């Protein structure tokens, strides 16, 4: 994440690689003994985690109740479809709007806070939404949730494409993911993204320079909730249902783990790596032991203690070491990553 504000290409090599790897999964995933739905699920979590990292990594704002907005997205998409009969695009846009509204509402209550108070408030609000989903039977279906959420056809004006097959739906989600990826990449390098990062480093200076810190924090949360909502809507279509578990504290915790393990604090790509590692571990470890989360949790603790910059951090240090000639190795400033961490 460190680096002078130099021109950043709209599309980068890692972006192309990520999308290409995902796009080709139907060709090789089965050969590895895995299944296509896994790639879809990983992609949806990547989107959710990328949106979450806008807060955690770029804004330094710990939202530990973010599963709520993922769940709100799933429910909103389902309810819009079941009660208002919306189609695919209208449903997704409506979902983004609703997530932004509810996210914005919560953000209005928490944006003057930071640190532990911010985190606690996000958890509290997350629990409120979970409680509503559980108890408001007539609308949310209570514990059973909403069933029979359909994957509407994608209408392009001249033709309608059915997304009922898993493959078609996968490529639709991949398109959404790719667009969101480019938009988020641009966002973090825009003036808004850079100011957000500055606020994370020094809120007081930012306000003395003339920035409306509260409004930036509010916007960051609202945007992040919208991305979570979008991911939730895709998840509702993938699962063809929405249920309270998607907005549970578990999911809120998982997305934080993904961002941290992947290295969201030091890299845009942290959440992408983290979601991949997390869901893969769940499936691969989960096949051997029911207590996979225990083992994963231990790895997570180790990571936070000894390698807080996550996988992306390890990678950056390794690259920096390779680039630095041995003679200059002992000066801290020559290792940009180390220098940044120290600051």
């Amino acid at each position, binding site marked *: 994440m460190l680096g002078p504000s130099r021109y950043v290409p709209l599309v980068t090599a890692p972006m192309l690689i990520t999308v290409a790897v995902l796009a080709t999964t139907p060709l090789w995933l089965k050969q590895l003994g895995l299944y296509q739905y896994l790639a879809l699920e990983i992609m949806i979590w990547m989107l959710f985690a990328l949106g979450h990292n806008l807060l955690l990594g770029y804004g330094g704002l710990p939202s530990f109740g973010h599963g709520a907005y993922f769940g709100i997205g799933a429910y909103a998409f389902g309810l819009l479809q079941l009660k208002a009969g919306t189609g695919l695009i209208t449903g997704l846009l409506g979902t983004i709007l609703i997530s932004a509204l509810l996210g914005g509402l919560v953000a209005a209550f928490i944006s003057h806070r930071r640190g532990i108070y911010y985190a606690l408030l996000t958890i509290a609000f997350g629990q409120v939404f979970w409680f509503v989903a559980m108890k408001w039977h007539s609308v949310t279906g209570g514990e059973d949730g909403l069933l029979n959420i359909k994957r509407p056809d994608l209408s392009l004006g001249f033709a309608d494409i059915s997304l009922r097959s898993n493959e078609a739906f996968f490529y639709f989600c991949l398109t959404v993911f790719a667009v969101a990826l480019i938009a988020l990449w641009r966002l973090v390098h825009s003036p808004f993204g*850079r100011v957000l990062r500055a606020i994370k*480093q020094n809120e007081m200076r930012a306000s003395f320079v003339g*920035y409306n810190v509260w409004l930036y924090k509010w916007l960051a949360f609202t945007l992040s909730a919208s991305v979570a909502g979008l991911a939730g809507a895709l998840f509702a279509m993938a699962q063809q249902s929405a249920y309270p578990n998607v907005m549970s504290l578990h999911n809120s915790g998982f997305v934080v783990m993904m961002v941290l393990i992947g290295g969201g604090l030091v890299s845009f790509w942290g959440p992408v790596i983290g979601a991949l590692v997390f869901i893969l571990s769940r499936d691969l470890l989960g096949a051997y032991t029911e207590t996979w989360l225990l083992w994963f949790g231990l790895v997570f603790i180790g990571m936070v203690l000894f390698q807080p910059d996550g996988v992306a951090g390890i990678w950056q240090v390794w690259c920096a070491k390779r680039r630095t000639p041995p003679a200059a190795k002992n000066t801290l400033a020559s290792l940009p990553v180390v220098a940044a961490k120290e600051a």
Partner: protein
Amino acid sequence: MALFEAKQLHKRFGDQVVLENISLTFEEGQLTGIMGPNGAGKSTCFNVLTGRFRPDRGSVRFAGEDITGLSSREIASKGISRSFQIMNLFNEETALDNVLLSSPAVRKKGFSMLRDLGRNNTARDSAFAVLSRVGLADKADVSAGSLSYGERRALEIGVALAAEPRLLFLDEPTAGLGAEGTARLAQLIAQLKRQLTIVIIEHDMRFLFNLADRISVIHWGQVIAEGTPNELRENPWVQRSNLGALA
């Protein structure tokens, strides 16, 4: 009419009165020095004037407008900028970006989400010009956190300057700079003088007496003396302080 006028400011922390009836006037284009012993309330005075703290009583006017009790952001956007006694930078950002983020051009576009900040060459060029001015041109790409102490002090001033203020507050800019750094800073401030209105808190009397048009002495949260440097040389408090340095 004076550019900036503070009248009868009071500020207390708990039951400790830190500012008691402080009135200060800064004329457009002038350089005012503020001195006084440690703990006199000088920084607190700056903090009240720039919106970090709200005064308990009193009023502040800037360019004919009442700015009493406005937030630091509102005061900053009116064209008042400051540096801090204890350094206050965006440590992970490069020196260039610290300055860039402070520039009005970027500030106005702060909510733009789709534009790439790195493509704004005009803003970068003027940020670079500010860096050169404070002697940090060759450190543009170094993160603020890894600059040396003196360089960070210079960057503090660069960030304050980049905002293109009408009124600039500097809180002990020479602290820890050493003779050479202080001389360079004196040069810079001499250049800035007249272009904008400047107020400097400073313990280094030689530095201050050479540069200032007027000086105010703050003690026990009150202005105990005011005048031109020449008038103040006669002041008993100033005399008792290390006037030897001025000889």
